[in-house]
């Protein structure tokens, strides 16, 4: 195992951020990204640059109140409804990620502490509450979210609704997929759509959603193509676990005309870079489960230096089927029920195994965001399911948004030990295959 302290390895990965140590408002951050994204990301025309230009533009529009603003949770709520009606979506979990990436979490967490929110709740939600209390977020006209994924999300929205004095719609997502459950969910989606139409001052007609659904289908096709590229060796990737960030932040664009462009750009960028042989061969293929740090954790560069590449993330998985533009609400119900993160953990574990197999991974890394009960509570089932298929699960624990407790050296030591073992196993397997092992007969 390598020693990291004192050998200069840590320094190599230290990044100086222009915003570290400065207090900057979220609005300023978003305006800055929007204005200077080409210089910030240095890759004009890339999917990454496109995503941040558009997301920052949407957020700036929300600050300027160019249309009614709807706060929602982009990774669970059918975003087609918001885009089809010309409303502006804001997801405070994504904005909390921006604050974290810009090292602005301290004042937000302090504001949340002063408010009285216990420190054992989710940091992302605490940052969002702190940001709302500090008037950092664009004001909502309506709040809508769902009950699935986690309890904290729905509860945070309740605080936000109180704080801003706006209506709060909660879609109660049943966990059992039955005919009654589907009817119950569809009824709720219809009510939400009616309310959103009122807000947009547009007569409520389901056909309005067809175009957004068609756009979602286009996006799905491009996203699948890009994901399929990741099955190749060498696997294309975006630095610093960019695949995860792109897919997570990209949910804000789902259902808009921007989403297909995002994934077309990603697909063509990766195809071109594969042709140009820009990606080095990987030694270890990794499936990344659950969350990823939103601040600058240089662990991904470190992994890449050791030939360990994240080839797929659980949250980048395109779990849904083709939607039917002539039955938008029914299709949304189908999609929501096909969410592999929803409900019981067995389903999530099954999906992790399927992903591990189809992306031919050597191991999986589960980044457990400490306060995330629903994800970490399923760890035993995930571990058992993966290990049954001979796939090692490495557990990392940390806080995805608050960098103060992140110990890069400890994380590297932990991963280093696992990678060494993995290397031994892989060499052993190859030796068996060649018959050059020592000590035992090749069966």
């Amino acid at each position, binding site marked *: 195992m390598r020693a990291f302290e004192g050998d200069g390895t840590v320094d190599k990965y230290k990044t100086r951020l222009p915003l570290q140590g400065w207090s900057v408002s979220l609005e300023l951050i978003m305006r800055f990204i929007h204005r200077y994204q080409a210089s910030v990301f240095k890759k004009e025309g890339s999917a990454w640059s496109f995503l941040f230009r558009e997301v920052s533009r949407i957020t700036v529009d929300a600050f300027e109140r160019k249309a009614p603003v709807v706060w929602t949770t982009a990774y669970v709520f059918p975003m087609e409804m918001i885009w089809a009606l010309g409303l502006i979506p804001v997801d405070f979990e994504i904005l909390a990620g921006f604050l974290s990436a810009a090292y602005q979490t301290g004042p937000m967490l302090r504001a949340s502490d002063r*408010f*009285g*929110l*216990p420190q*054992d*709740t*989710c940091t992302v*939600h605490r940052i969002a509450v702190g940001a709302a209390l500090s008037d950092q977020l664009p004001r909502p006209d309506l709040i809508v979210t769902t*009950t699935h994924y*986690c*309890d*904290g999300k*729905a*509860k*945070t929205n*309740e*605080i936000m609704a*109180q704080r801003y004095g706006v209506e*709060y719609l*909660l879609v*109660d997502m*049943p*966990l*059992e997929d*039955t005919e*009654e*459950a589907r009817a*119950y969910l569809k*009824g*709720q989606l219809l009510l939400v759509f009616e309310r959103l139409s009122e807000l947009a001052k547009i007569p409520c007609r389901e056909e309005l959603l067809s175009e957004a659904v068609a756009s979602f289908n286009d996006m799905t096709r491009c996203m699948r193509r890009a994901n399929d590229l990741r099955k190749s060796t060498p696997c294309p990737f975006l630095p610093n676990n960019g695949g995860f960030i792109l897919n997570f932040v990209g949910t804000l664009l789902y259902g808009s005309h921007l989403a297909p462009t995002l994934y077309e750009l990603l697909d063509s960028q990766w195809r071109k870079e594969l042709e140009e042989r820009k990606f080095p061969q990987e030694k270890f293929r990794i499936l990344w489960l659950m969350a990823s740090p939103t601040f600058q954790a240089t662990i991904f560069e470190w992994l890449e230096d050791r030939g360990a590449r994240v080839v797929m993330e659980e949250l980048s998985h395109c779990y849904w089927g083709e939607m039917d533009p002539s039955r938008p609400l029914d299709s949304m119900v189908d999609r929501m029920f096909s969410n592999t993160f929803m*409900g*019981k*953990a*067995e389903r999530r574990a099954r999906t992790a195994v399927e992903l591990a197999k189809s992306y031919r991974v050597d191991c999986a890394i589960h980044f457990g965001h*400490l*306060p995330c*009960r*629903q994800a*970490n*509570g*399923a*760890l*035993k*089932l995930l571990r*058992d399911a993966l290990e049954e298929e001979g796939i090692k699960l490495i557990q990392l624990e940390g806080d995805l948004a608050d960098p103060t407790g992140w110990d890069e050296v400890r994380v590297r030591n932990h991963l280093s030990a696992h990678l060494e073992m993995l290397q031994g196993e892989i060499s052993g397997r190859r030796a068996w295959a060649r018959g050059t092992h020592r000590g035992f007969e090749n069966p």
Partner: protein
Amino acid sequence: MESHRPASDNRVGWLCSYTPMEIPLALGLLPTRMSGQGRISGATDPRIYHLLCPYVRSVFKAAAQLRPERVVFARCCDAMVRLHDLWKVCFGGKVHFLDLPKISSPEAVSYFANVLRGWAKELRDGAEPEEEELWDSITEMNRVRAFFRGLFSEVARRALPYSWVRERVRLWLEYPTEGTLKAIEEERQALHFDGKMGKGPGVILSSTMLDQGEIVSLIEEAGLVVVGDDECLGERHFHMDVEEGGDPFEALAHRYLQRWPCPRMKGVGRRLEELERILEERGAAGVVIVYLKFCDQSSFDIPLIQEKFRKKGVPLLLLENDYTSSALGQMRTRLEAFREILHEGF
């Protein structure tokens, strides 16, 4: 786990106060509350995530030793859903799951009624239960609710100590209803608490799962008099009867989704209203919140409760319950200081 129960297979273990006990009772089954003895001690079981709420972890730990053959889990929170997942893998047995809505709209009531109908069928191996049996158990449970509401009303007028009533609730959860209620009534008539209750300041106790009798005792020993509560197995559990008539499953679903809500339900406003109502009705001087560590549902309500009562000038004490005994000494000191604050009229 409740060791007093006979080790028969007619027990149905339950955890969440939103589980309608009427259904297993109607089918001749014995609802058995799983408390995990209200304590976590020894090493953490590596199979369960260490930052799940201590109630869930304590139940999991206790279940490794002794558990009913049938258990029902409700979709009350993330931790409970994960406990359900682990239970199936680690302990097996007959595991039921109630898809409990978080909203109380008429559509949610109909959906929950269907869920309950399905559960009743599962318990009876696919056969529809008789309506008459269900109505009998609903009437029986309404009688139990009225009985305990009566005891809590005596707590409100300082005629009975809160700890005494909570202990009787615990006994009722452990023993068959008929004999237990009779014994409690006899005991109550033989006791005369008037004058022994002290003239300490009245407080409202707000919590989720408070299985630790010692915390309630600490509050009383500090010289505070609990005159009302907002707790899963306290007044909330006995609030509102099931309306008799119509479809029994609809009636049950309506009662369970419309009653005094716990933090898991959407609409903290209703919970705050109920808290404010009992605070004013009972002339309480302050509020003691005993919050369950790692319980996200209740954690997010805390600032809103604090804000509400701070504006009204009502003193509030926040205690953290992690199901260990290590914090009890500190709690005693804080409770005594709170009593002094209330005495001096801050």
